[in-house]
């Protein structure tokens, strides 16, 4: 119905309510300059400043030259804007002998993230669905174990997983890494889907059963279309986690499929030599760009997902 961007784009000067029909479901608002609104937007604005401050520092720093960074005030805007740190981070920073910056690992990160996100969400949503709607004997025990697994520090599992992957012959391969990501994403995602599916009205499920739909039929035709918001949340979790992962990527694969975070680590963590904070910051923003873009795009999906979810009301 109403596109939020449209209304916000024209909001600067226009008067009148934007009429978000399918949007939020909170209690009713209105009246533009009421005390309530001033308080509401004031609070949001103050909080937004707190959230934006570090980003501001990062962007400002990444646009300064090193001498200026050394001078010290991290909040002051750059006197002389330079894009050199960005160029350097993307295509010149060295990882050992390979001086092609973050660009080297970018496609590897994509190659790792896409299958890992798809596989882990597919497995977890099916798990959650089975746990919510098709409970079988012992299913809840496995679920409890999974939840327990969410609390196991990754580092502890490094060596056992090395042995496991070695035994099934996937050590050092892309698919080995995809499986590792799916395993460690499983606890939280399964919980997420299970709880979401549980909260859906049971009548829907029963009606479909009466119509003769089976396990997969109900999953694909009813559960998936009704669960867009939670799929988006799961995607946010997984894309961020997997894209930012360094430890698994580097331990379970080989240099030719190392993700971008390996270069980021090399840029940020160079222990000897001068720390180029401006390049660090540029590299950081560049690495975070993909999840950021995904959030931005999926934020819209999120809203629409809610509109779709409103069907059930």
């Amino acid at each position, binding site marked *: 119905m109403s596109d939020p961007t449209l209304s916000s784009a024209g909001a600067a000067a226009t008067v009148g309510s934007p009429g978000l029909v399918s949007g939020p479901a909170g209690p009713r608002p209105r009246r533009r300059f009421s005390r309530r609104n001033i308080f509401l937007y004031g609070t949001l604005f103050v909080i937004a400043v707190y959230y934006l401050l570090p980003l501001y520092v990062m962007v400002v720093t990444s646009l300064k030259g090193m001498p200026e960074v050394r001078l010290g005030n991290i909040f002051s805007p750059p006197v002389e804007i330079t894009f050199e740190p960005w160029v350097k981070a993307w295509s010149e920073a060295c990882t050992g002998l390979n001086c092609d910056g973050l660009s080297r690992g970018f496609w590897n990160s994509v190659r790792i993230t896409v299958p890992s996100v798809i596989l882990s969400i597919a497995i977890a949503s099916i798990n959650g669905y089975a746990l919510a709607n098709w409970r079988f004997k012992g299913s809840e025990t496995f679920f409890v174990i999974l939840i327990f697994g969410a609390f196991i520090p990754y580092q502890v599992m490094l060596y056992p997983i090395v042995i496991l992957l070695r035994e099934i012959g*996937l050590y050092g391969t892309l698919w080995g890494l995809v499986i590792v990501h799916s395993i460690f994403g499983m606890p939280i995602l399964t919980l997420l889907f299970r709880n979401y599916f549980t909260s859906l009205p049971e009548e829907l499920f029963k009606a479909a059963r009466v119509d003769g739909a089976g396990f997969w039929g109900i999953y694909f035709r009813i559960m998936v279309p009704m669960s867009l918001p939670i799929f988006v949340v799961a995607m946010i979790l997984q894309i961020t986690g997997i894209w930012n992962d360094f430890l698994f990527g580097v331990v379970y694969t080989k240099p030719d499929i190392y993700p971008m975070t390996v270069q980021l680590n090399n840029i940020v963590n160079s222990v000897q030599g001068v720390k180029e904070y401006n390049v660090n910051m540029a590299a950081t923003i560049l690495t975070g760009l993909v999840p950021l873009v995904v959030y931005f795009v999926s934020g819209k999906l999120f809203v629409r997902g809610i509109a779709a979810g409103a069907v059930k009301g």
Partner: protein
Amino acid sequence: MKFTKTLLAGSAAIALSTSAFATDLEVTHWWTSGGEAAAVGEFAKAFDATGNKWVDGAIAGSGGTARPIMISRITGGDPMGATQFNHGRQAEELVEAGLMKDLTAVAEAGKWKDVINEIGLLDSCTIDGKIYCAPVNIHSWQWLWLSNKAFADAGVAVPANWNELVAAAPKLREKGMVPLAVGGQPWQTTGVFNVLMSGLGGKDLYLKVYDAKDAEVAGGADVAKIFSALNDAREMSRGSNVQDWNQATNMVITGKAGGQIMGDWAQGEFQIAEQVAGTDYSCLPGLGVNELLSTNGDAFYFPKVDNAEISAAQDKLAEVLFAPTTQVAFNLKKGSLPIRKDVDLAAANDCMKKGLAILAKGGLVKSTDQLISPDTATQIDDLMTQFFSDESITPEDAQKRFAGIIKSAD
């Protein structure tokens, strides 16, 4: 079902694509800063010249970050061709588990024993009479770096030894300077302690504590003096407020701090800041008291592989690393001292020459990396960093705990 099928297809495809070329040798290391990378480039150049190919696998962040990766690769049955470790006891168990290649033949052919600067370095590579690693350089910890500008500003002469620095400290404080910059990371505080131990206590004391692991000595009067000096260091470091070692070095460069105890790698920072040894900064090996240098450094290890061609390439690399020309080219860029005594470093700067002179006099002592296990070292790290940050710990308490660690050390 579909899941497993995909898996099989995936692994088959990858198995095909990784049929390695015999002479491609993947080398992992954690040399990633500018100077380090340039140095390692010398190795790669020399190795490529033999007709083989160096495939670089750099991972930044020694210790915590790089080592678990390397060890996983080796135990995962898919090892790299060669890998860097600090020489010392880090790879001991990998050798004992039979995962590492025996280099004795290469070492004998190259007469490593005869040309090496300090035989102790090779001892650290030797287990049951066989040599398992190729040491490539010597880094030493025992340096006190001083800012000439800071002392000029405070109106005192640049100290010639530790005690003069302690005496000058109040003057520096008056001008709002930190007499001794110490970064917050635990290994830096331990470094300060060990340098005080060898510099003020001398070789015998140092070895009694770390080599013989004599808890009596560690709890005794001689070490008590070291702890009292450490107390001075703690006093002088107040207000450092930095984490990384190079930030601390930067305080010396900018004259905000009087000095810093740090290894010879700090020199790279002075060079990049275009400071000149002698005029802008001074260096005192062994704190100007006991001119001893420890033999910290790096070594390459070669995991055992079935492939005969890779095995031959590994031998070749070991040989190249040790060759005189590579040693000169590498160490000049790395700022470390060469492993061979038959090479000439004419291009070295003043501080490096001081180091070479000590080397020539045989003023070397084994590093703590070689003498104590990483486990013990970590416990000492924890103690030292706590001591520096928490003034409620007296030198006596700290010494008691130190003696306890030495008692259970291995």
